[in-house]
């Protein structure tokens, strides 16, 4: 999994690509979110447009990150799901947990 980070106003955008899977992508995701919180960036927008696969460990880590950020008083939202990732969020019913936005403008506005 690869990642790029940028901050727009008070929102940390984490752009991911590749696979969020057990043993690598899931660990990296946790590190990216923990690092953001340590830097005081509690509003996190995870851009999944380039993510090709997310296994149960990856989705579990996403849930854990959501819980951690929420407990810190921040917000974690998802941006640009591919059709397959959208399918997975629906079958796991996590689509009811995450706020999902279609583009960056919508994503940034959702934190205001």
């Amino acid at each position, binding site marked *: 999994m690869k990642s790029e980070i940028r901050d727009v106003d008070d929102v940390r955008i984490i752009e991911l690509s590749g696979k969020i*899977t*057990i*043993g*690598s992508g899931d660990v990296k995701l946790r590190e990216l979110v923990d690092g953001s919180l340590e830097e005081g960036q509690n509003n996190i927008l995870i851009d999944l447009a380039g993510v090709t*696969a997310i*296994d*149960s*460990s990856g*989705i*579990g*880590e996403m*849930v*854990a990150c*959501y*819980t951690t950020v929420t407990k810190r008083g921040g917000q974690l939202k998802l941006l640009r799901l591919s059709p*397959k990732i959208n*399918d*997975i969020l*629906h*079958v*796991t*019913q*996590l689509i*009811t*947990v995450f706020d999902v936005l279609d583009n960056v403008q919508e994503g940034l506005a959702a934190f205001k």
Partner: protein
Amino acid sequence: MRARSDPSHPTPIPADGPLHAHLVLSSRFENIEIAERALIDLCEDAGFSGDDSYWIVTALREATANAIRHGNKQDPEKTVIIDFRVHSGEVRIRVEDQGEGFDLDTVPDPTDPGYLLRPSGRGIFYMRQFMTRVEFSRAPGGGTVVEMTRRLGAETRSSINEE
């Protein structure tokens, strides 16, 4: 990492078709990529659609990850044995670990509101969503065997849910 043919394996899926693979992998997460690559190659050879291949590979990854993590406790000396077979318009996958087995009845439904925010426990759910049939049994040595089938062209439950 080990990947080899093992014709002496005691309970192989019969190789009565031209598309059959048998892998023996040590219990390391990076070896999931080897299993995935082998299955993708087989799916391409069989002319599967992209959707079929994607969900079959997703289920394989879950079964293999469970065997490594929960079955073999990531002990690299223990192996995960994987068979793939394509026959009569369906793909069959068999994954066996060398663990101590588990009680399927103790695995909660991860979509239950009380479990929705748990960070783990979705692997078997993934398999059942994306394969037509999933069955668990005990290997002769006490480990877990999961056998999964997907009929080609079958809808995933996600497609059904969206209707």
